[in-house]
């Protein structure tokens, strides 16, 4: 770890945790606060897509795990009255569990076949959410999810009850930004560890890696499970922010969007998804003034970006 990197990390932490919230609270811009909160959650979910790409698979099914996580959290909180903080982790584990069961067979597929099957996976989860009425309440969804309660250890309050806060948006801002920071710290450590190098070998040539004694199926399933864990936790935070979940909360278009965030940021960079999510989310927001031309201009920008920067936004750094 060189000094420059540590300084950069400290600066970005200060900006994320102190500067941005202070400025937004002072200027009363709740809309931007909500925007950055969403970007943090989206970046976290997209981190999973990035990880699956890192081992050479294009994952267009991240929305499925976000929806699984979202519904598990909603059911655990509203029907079993679990604390939000417990449900958050359980949601991640449920998503990871499903991803292991589903991943074992489908991770054998490669290239475009894997992409297409993950695309249908999002549709499958949505249809299950509609059909399995006793648990998911069908198309009407689960509404009135309470705000996260307080988290305390031995009577010592670590995180106060969100409902007692003056502005629960601040609470969600910190929750999602910290979750995003943890996610990307894990991701960064993972990529630079021994496992990261092994995963990179899968990206290049699975057969060759396997012939050198790399347990490829184990690695694939484990990293897919980690990716889905991120998706599940991200989905759980998101539905607590909106306090409701419907089968359409995460759908095929969302899954495609997560892939786009990851691609746009640049696949060669761990922090790519953050930048991609930030740029696409806010350009969509800003283009709102164009009303019916919003999608046209947005997709036009996307096409132009691809035309001139086919290797992602962060590839600009390479040329220097």
């Amino acid at each position: 770890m060189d000094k420059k990197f540590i300084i950069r990390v400290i600066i970005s932490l200060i900006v994320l945790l102190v500067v941005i919230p202070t400025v937004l609270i002072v200027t009363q811009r709740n809309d931007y606060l909500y925007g950055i909160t969403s970007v943090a959650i989206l970046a976290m979910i997209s981190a999973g897509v990035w990880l699956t790409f890192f081992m050479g698979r294009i994952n267009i099914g991240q929305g499925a795990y976000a929806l699984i996580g979202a519904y598990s959290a909603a059911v655990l909180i509203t029907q079993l009255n679990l604390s939000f903080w417990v449900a958050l982790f359980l949601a991640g584990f449920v998503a990871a569990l499903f991803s292991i069961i589903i991943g074992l067979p489908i991770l054998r597929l490669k290239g475009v076949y894997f992409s297409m099957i993950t695309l249908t996976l999002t549709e499958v989860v949505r249809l299950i959410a509609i059909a399995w009425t006793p648990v998911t309440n069908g198309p009407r969804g689960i509404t009135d999810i309470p705000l996260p309660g307080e988290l305390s250890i031995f009577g010592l309050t670590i995180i106060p009850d969100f409902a007692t806060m003056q502005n629960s948006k601040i609470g969600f801002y910190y929750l999602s930004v910290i979750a995003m920071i943890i996610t990307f710290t894990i991701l960064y450590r993972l990529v630079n560890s021994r496992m990261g190098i092994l995963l990179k070998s899968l990206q290049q040539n699975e057969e060759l890696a396997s012939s050198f004694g790399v347990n490829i199926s184990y690695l694939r399933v484990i990293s897919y499970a980690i990716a889905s864990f991120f998706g599940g936790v991200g989905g759980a935070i998101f539905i607590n922010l909106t306090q409701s979940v419907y089968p359409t909360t995460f759908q095929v278009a969302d899954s495609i969007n997560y892939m786009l965030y990851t691609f746009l940021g640049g696949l060669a960079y761990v922090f790519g998804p953050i930048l991609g999510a930030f740029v696409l989310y806010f350009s969509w927001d800003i283009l709102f003034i164009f009303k019916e031309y919003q999608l046209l201009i947005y997709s036009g920008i996307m096409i132009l970006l691809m035309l001139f920067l086919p290797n992602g936004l962060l590839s600009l750094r390479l040329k220097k």
Partner: protein
Amino acid sequence: MEQILLNGLITGAQYALIALGLTLIFSLMNILNFAHGQMYVLGAFVTYYVYGKLGMPFIVAVIASGLTLALIGAIFEKYLFNPVIKKSLREESSMLLAAGTAFFLDALILIVFGEKQRSVPALVDGVFFGETYGLDIIIPYNRVVIGVIAVIMITAFILFMQYSKPGRAMRALAQDKIAAQLMGVNLDRYSLIGFAMGAMLAGVAGSLLVTITGVNSGIGGGISIQAFTMIMIGGAGVISGAILGGFILGLVEAFGLYYLPGDITYLTIFVCLMIFLTLRPQGLMGKPWG
């Protein structure tokens, strides 16, 4: 029973026509054309205006739809996909581009054509009652005619790919790009022709189907997913696979929708598809590479 079988076969022929274009583009350029459904919708709208509004003969409308889409496909290939594929470090960048073009066409269609459901008058009036022949079938003549046209189109396409010079060149490229280039096949030229033809097939399929189902600007994404499903069943990049996949999906859908509620039918199809693909990842006819 006969009724469901016939419905399934006719739907299957139409589906096969949709899947053919997608599989052609995929086999040549390894691009999963996300905008395929949107191209279908565009073709349907062109027919709606030429045949439904201007009252021209249907054949003119089909040709107009095909040509419009071939032009759009050629422009997409020449100015978007070709440069990006050449410049990017990874093949996957074309996927983002394809998704971008899908959103773009979606927005364009919505702005130009509005969100109303449009339909055109049937080609032939009247309904066929099978009772007089001892068959338990009721079917509008229009659907039969469209089904027959679809089958003729598929046959013509197969003949073209099998025996014409461009067809042979494209098959050679799909099999082995480098070897084909060494034999003097111009990659850029046939990628352009292939992409234009793939888009044209989507447009023609939309043009034919608008007489049965009508069209509205929001159905593009759904059509794309259906087309993906078909080429997953049959195997990506293989023409026989696309046709087989189309007919299988058409039949399964017809039987499923008769015996089960709509959502459950699609759930079952997708779950079966996932199990099937884990056993045979390359689909029924596909080549066993990824």
